[in-house]
């Protein structure tokens, strides 16, 4: 009998790490990321560290994902019932500086990695049709715009477009949803929020202040549970009121 588990990408830090810690109370996890040492550190923060698996994989290298995941699943006799895609990179640049190479890099990490993983997990001979739940960590930038976030916005919007269509295609076996955070304090954003000028400007825009990783993880915990059994194909904004705020700054 295979061991049922949830795959969390981007589990080394930030939102992915927090989700892993919270879900580890009652789930067996595959912690995905590119740095095994950091994943091992996340595992130590989880409940019952020994029962969770580490999947070291650089998602930028899309062509290696499928085989690497399949080997992990087969060697450990796992079945994956949930996939939470937190892995993501951010690039801020002028549109005139965008080229195919930097566009491809961010799309590989943020988007194509997810399509490879999902396609693999839906194959009966790999995962025995066990995938019941998919959650993408998208961003409010999937729906709104900001200077310099051209490619990042596009990758998150791509995830949400995929989310809606496969929510229909995979029903009733698999529920698919996206969580769209606003500004959250994580290692990825730490540098920006340590910047007093950026922090001051940001605080003016967030009625509830800057978010914490737990604010996202709590919603993910609900969406992955059976309490959300009639919810699929939706985008959920968690942004401390950022996108509904039209006050004069």
């Amino acid at each position, binding site marked *: 009998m295979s061991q049922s588990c949830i795959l969390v990408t981007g589990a080394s830090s930030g939102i992915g790490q927090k989700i892993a810690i919270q879900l580890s109370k009652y789930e067996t996890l595959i912690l995905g990321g590119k740095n095994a040492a950091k994943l091992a550190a996340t595992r130590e923060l989880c409940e019952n560290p020994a029962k969770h698996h580490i999947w070291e994989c650089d998602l930028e290298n899309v062509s290696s994902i499928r085989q690497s995941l399949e080997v992990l699943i087969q060697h450990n006799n796992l079945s994956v019932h949930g996939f939470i895609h937190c892995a993501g990179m951010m690039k801020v640049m*002028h549109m005139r500086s965008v080229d195919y190479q930097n566009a491809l890099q961010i799309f590989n990490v943020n988007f194509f990695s997810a399509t490879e993983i999902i396609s693999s997990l839906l194959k009966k001979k790999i995962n025995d049709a066990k995938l019941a739940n998919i959650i993408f960590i998208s961003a409010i930038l999937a729906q709104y715009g900001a200077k310099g976030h051209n490619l990042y916005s596009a990758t998150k919007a791509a995830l949400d477009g995929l989310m809606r269509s496969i929510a229909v295609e995979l029903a009733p076996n698999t529920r698919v949803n996206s969580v769209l955070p606003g500004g959250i304090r994580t290692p990825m954003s730490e540098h920006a929020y340590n910047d007093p000028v950026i922090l001051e400007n940001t605080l003016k825009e967030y009625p509830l202040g800057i978010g914490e990783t737990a604010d996202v993880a709590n919603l993910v915990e609900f969406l992955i549970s059976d309490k959300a059994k009639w919810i699929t194909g939706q985008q959920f904004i968690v942004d401390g009121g950022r996108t509904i705020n039209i006050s004069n700054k």
Partner: protein
Amino acid sequence: MDNFYEKMAELLEVDKVEDSEVLKDFEAWDSLTSLSIIAMADSDYNIKIYTEDLLKLETIGELKSLIDSKAKK
């Protein structure tokens, strides 16, 4: 740091840049340029620069000195 001048020229949309040139005088200078410099320092040189550091700078040469000084630490 070999490519610093080339990268700045590309960012500022000119053929080349000199140490004495004033950042804000470039036609292509805008708020996103400073964010791009912060991102470039982080990704290419593994150096953390903050907006308030940049606000104190006038010229290309001063920016280079800032990056050089942080790189040595």
